[in-house]
């Protein structure tokens, strides 16, 4: 299997899906040149009709993706940085997410939104955000957060084929990570968690770039005979609750690691589910490892202090297992 990067995986997924369906097309700011490399070269394969640089007008072109979907096409709509979603929140939350339901099922909304998110080194508060928590309470959306190249390709392909608005969040720091990724058809279903590593003493649910961090902590603690099960939910909506609860039933302890904030974050959402449906399995508090509740600062030592990291994951695990 060829080793490719996270960014190449995105490129492959889009190219394959555009090859597969002539009504699938790509739009966004600077997708022609492909500012981060993810969409590079697609213009040569698919031409200017299907690879479109938009004006800088997020509400306008996100809304246009909604309209294009309603007209029977399948837009892939890139919004460079996830923080820019804020400029198009109405079109996503009030329109894309709701119009199917509000029309009694008449509308179908096969749109894939893509954006880079997360702290990636000095990008500061308006370019480092983890915006998905704010879409969690918007029924009608699906939320996908791949943690590596192989899932990236397989999930993105599934997202593009999905007949609902799906937002794919691509962590900026994972861009150059590489792994084996199947060439051609490779689909990862939305709603199926991955057990990245089995373990008995504690479950760590990790999201996005927290997955590799959790894995390295798990390896380290293995030496001390603390056996950590790492679960990557991969998609937050739909959520593979069963996988998480089954793991907690086995380990009786859980740590949730997410780069979002503590208050109102995705970790809180998962913690609440476990505290309800998994309460009887629990032998310890539901611990969250998140970024601090501050805007993400620019200066490297501050950014490092703000963002959830291995040390904090390790500390949380030790706290819940009591070692």
């Amino acid at each position, binding site marked *: 299997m060829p080793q490719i990067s996270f960014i190449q995986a995105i490129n492959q997924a889009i190219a394959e899906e555009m090859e597969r369906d002539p*009504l699938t*097309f790509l739009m966004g700011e600077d997708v022609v040149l492909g500012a981060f490399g993810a969409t590079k070269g697609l213009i040569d394969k698919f031409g200017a*009709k*299907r690879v*479109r640089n*938009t*004006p800088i*007008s997020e*509400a*306008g*072109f*996100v*809304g*246009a*993706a*909604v*309209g*294009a*979907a*309603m*007209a*029977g*096409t399948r*837009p892939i709509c890139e919004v460079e940085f996830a923080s820019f979603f804020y400029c198009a929140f*109405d*079109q996503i939350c*009030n*329109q894309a997410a709701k*119009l*199917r*339901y*509000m*029309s*009694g*099922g*008449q*509308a*179908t*909304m096969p749109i894939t939104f893509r954006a880079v998110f997360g702290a990636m080194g000095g990008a500061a508060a308006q370019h480092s955000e983890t915006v998905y928590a704010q879409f969690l309470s918007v*029924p*009608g959306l*699906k939320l996908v957060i791949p943690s590596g190249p192989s899932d990236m390709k397989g999930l993105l392909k599934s997202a593009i084929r999905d*007949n*609902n608005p799906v937002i794919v969040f691509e962590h900026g720091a994972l861009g150059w990570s590489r792994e084996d990724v199947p060439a051609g058809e490779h689909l990862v279903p939305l709603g199926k968690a991955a057990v990245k590593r089995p373990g008995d003493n504690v479950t760590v649910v990790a999201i996005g770039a927290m997955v590799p961090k959790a894995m390295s902590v798990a390896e380290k603690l293995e030496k001390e005979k603390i056996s950590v099960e790492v679960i990557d939910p991969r998609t937050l909506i739909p959520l593979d609750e069963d996988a998480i609860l089954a793991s907690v039933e086995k380990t009786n302890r859980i740590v949730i690691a997410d780069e979002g904030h503590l208050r109102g974050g995705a970790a809180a959402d998962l913690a609440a589910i476990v505290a309800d449906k998994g309460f009887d399995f629990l032998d310890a508090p539901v611990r969250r490892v998140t970024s601090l509740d501050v805007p993400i600062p620019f200066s490297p030592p501050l950014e490092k202090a703000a963002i959830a990291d291995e040390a904090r994951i390790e500390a949380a695990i030790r706290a819940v297992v009591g070692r």
Partner: protein
Amino acid sequence: MDISKDKLLEMYRTMQKIRLFESKARDLAMAAEIPGFVHVSIGEEASATGVCAALRKTDRITSNHRGHGHLIAKGGRLDRMMAEIFGKRTGYCKGKGGSMHIVDYSLGILGANGIVGAGLPIATGSALGAVIAGKDDVTVAFFGDGASNEGTFHESLNLAAVWKLPVVFVCENNGFGEFTPMATVTSVKDIAVRAKAYDIPGHIVDGNDVLEVFRFTSEAVARARAGEGPTLLECKTYRWEGHVVGEQAFLGDGSYREKSEVEEWKRKCPLIRFEKWCAESGKISSAELKKIIADTEKELADAVEFARSSELPAPSEVTDDVYNNT
């Protein structure tokens, strides 16, 4: 432009349908027989009618909170619309939408919308979809003077202009956004002027003259269909009724316009104007018009009966249709 007699009759029928449907909806809302916010466009029938008369079935429209007229003009059925307003499961949206959100995709009606200005990008995208799919369908975005101050207006017109998309932007300028006079919140007298900011044609249209609306729209649609890009039409008109049915309950003694202004515009009634034109031009007899009224009254009565006698949705239906599971 020569307009066929059938077309003329159809336009009159449409205006009557809108007038009668909305008068009924208003009365039912006042009587609390229908819930939620109801916005009627009585007095503005000519713009919806003239615009949609220039469209074919596969063309599409987006509408706004004041959408009954647009929907009826694009072919929406009175019975299913009325049922929706009543919140019945036989309504267009199975009761999930209500007055502000009626949709019929099979007729190219992409929906009324509760968010001011939200329909413009959607219409632009619908036009983009036609281009991607290689079809020559045109999309119309209906919106108000108030909506022309939203950022989505600007972003949509710019996008449509640079991509030369087949869309017609129809601003129904009725002089008010809710209770705020347009002039106090809008930097131009004529919205049509704003077309200059996108280097596209912009026209001021007498929005109470269905024939003029039809002519301007036909031209804009032809332009759009030929791949020459968008047009901005500003239909000057007026709403006779309040912004929302029942507004007096919360406005109390607060008033935002002179009675005399309302009266003046009532004299410019688009239906009476058309009736006069029929009489003067001799194209259509008053008997023919009367028959249309009678037919429409019957259709409306049936629609109300249909809505009243339809079932409410079952509580269990609440979770249907959030996702498309195919």
